[in-house]
C-alpha cells in the first residue's frame, strides 16, 4: 500500500475558490502570460479577490509582467501567495531564482501536485492559471486534479496556431473538460476566427488587437492597465463574468 498524501488535499485547498480559469494555447508565444497576468490585474482592480498562478515551471514569466524582482513567498502552515497589485500571486520563481530548471515529465507532475496541495489561496472569486505551451503534463494533471477548471484558449491568427488550438479543444472537449471559449490575440486585420475552431462550437470571447505599446508597459502594472491591450482584456473580463458556469 502506498497513498500519496497530496492527492486528498487538493480539493480542500480549492474549496473556497469560486472559479478556476486556465489560460491555455497548445502553441507557444501567443500571449497566454500577458493575457492571464493582465486579466488578473483587471479583476483585482474591479474589486474581486483573485489569484494568479504561474504554471510554467521552466519558463515562469508572470513576475516579469508585474515587475517583481525579489519575490518572497511567506510560509504559514503552507505556502502563502504574495500580494501584488491586489493579486495573490504564486510562482516557482522564488524557489529557482531565475536559474534554468531541468525537468523531466515526472518532475513536472510532482511540482503540479506540490503547489496545488500546499498553497493556501483562501477565498477567491477567480484563480487564473498561466499555462505553459504544449498538451503535456501541466495540462493533463490540471485536468485530472482540478475538475472545476475552465479553459480559456488563446490563439493568434495563423494557420499554424489555429491548428494547435483545434487539437487542444478537441482534447478538452473529448475529456469533458469545460472550454470557456477562445480569445484571438495579436489581431492586426479582419476576423480570422478559424473556420476549424468554429466547427468545434466554442465561443469567441474576445479579440485583442496587436498593441505596439504593450512592451513598454511590461513590468509596470499601472501602466499596463492603461494600454489598448488592457481595454480588450477588460471586455474579456466582462464576458467571463457573465458566463457563470
Amino acid at each position, binding site marked *: 500500500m502506498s497513498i500519496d498524501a*497530496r492527492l*486528498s488535499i487538493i480539493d480542500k485547498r480549492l474549496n473556497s475558490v469560486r472559479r478556476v480559469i486556465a489560460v491555455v494555447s497548445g502553441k507557444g508565444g501567443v500571449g497566454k502570460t500577458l493575457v492571464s497576468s493582465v486579466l488578473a490585474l483587471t479583476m483585482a482592480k474591479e474589486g474581486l479577490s483573485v489569484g494568479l498562478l504561474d504554471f510554467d515551471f521552466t519558463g515562469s514569466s508572470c513576475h516579469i509582467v508585474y515587475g517583481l524582482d525579489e519575490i518572497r513567498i511567506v510560509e504559514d502552515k503552507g505556502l502563502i501567495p504574495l500580494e501584488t497589485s491586489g493579486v495573490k500571486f504564486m510562482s516557482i520563481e522564488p524557489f529557482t531564482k531565475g536559474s534554468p530548471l531541468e525537468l523531466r515529465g515526472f518532475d513536472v507532475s510532482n511540482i503540479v501536485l*506540490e503547489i496545488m496541495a500546499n498553497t493556501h489561496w483562501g477565498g477567491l472569486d477567480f484563480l487564473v492559471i498561466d499555462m505553459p505551451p504544449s498538451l503535456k503534463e501541466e495540462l493533463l494533471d490540471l485536468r485530472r486534479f482540478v475538475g472545476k477548471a475552465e479553459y480559456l484558449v488563446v490563439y493568434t491568427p495563423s494557420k499554424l496556431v489555429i491548428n494547435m488550438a483545434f487539437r487542444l479543444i478537441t482534447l478538452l472537449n473529448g475529456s469533458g473538460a469545460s472550454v470557456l471559449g477562445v480569445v484571438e490575440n495579436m489581431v492586426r486585420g479582419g476576423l480570422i476566427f478559424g473556420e476549424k475552431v468554429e466547427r468545434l462550437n466554442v465561443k469567441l470571447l474576445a479579440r485583442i488587437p496587436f498593441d505596439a505599446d504593450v512592451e513598454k508597459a511590461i513590468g509596470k502594472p499601472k501602466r499596463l492597465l492603461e494600454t489598448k491591450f488592457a481595454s480588450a482584456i477588460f471586455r474579456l473580463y466582462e464576458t467571463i463574468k457573465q458566463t457563470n458556469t
Partner: protein
Amino acid sequence: MHEWALAEAVIEAAREERAKRELKDFSSLEVFVTLGELRQIDRQLFLNALRELSKTAFKEGVKFRIKMEKARLECLSCHNRWSLKDALKRLMPEEAESIHFIPETAHVYLKCPRCQSRDFKIVSGREVWISRIRASKPKGE
C-alpha cells in the same frame, strides 16, 4: 517550514482511506508515514501537527509511525547513482528551503557528483506517503 500543510494532507488521506475501507468500529488506528530525506521535515513539528489535527479529524485514538527514507538520485546522463550524504547541509539555507518546499528545485541546487549533470532522477526520498493503515478492533469482538 510547511510541516503543517503536509500533515493536513496526511490526515485527509487517512480519513479518505478509513472511509473507503469502511473502518468503523475500532479502538485504535495506526498510520505509517514515510518521509523522504529531501523534504527535510522536522519530525517533531510534523508529529505535533498530526496530533493536533487528529483531535478534530478522528474521534478514536490514532498513533503515527514515522519512518525516514534516504534520498537516492540517478544521473540520466552517466547513470551514476548517489545518495545525498551531507549535500543538503552544504547548501545555503534558502536553497535547502526551496528543496523542502518543492523537491524538484534540487535540479537547480544539486548535480551529479561524477559528471556534474543536473539531468537526474530522484529515485527515492522525495515523497511524504502513507505506507500502511492498521485498525485494531475493540476487545471482545
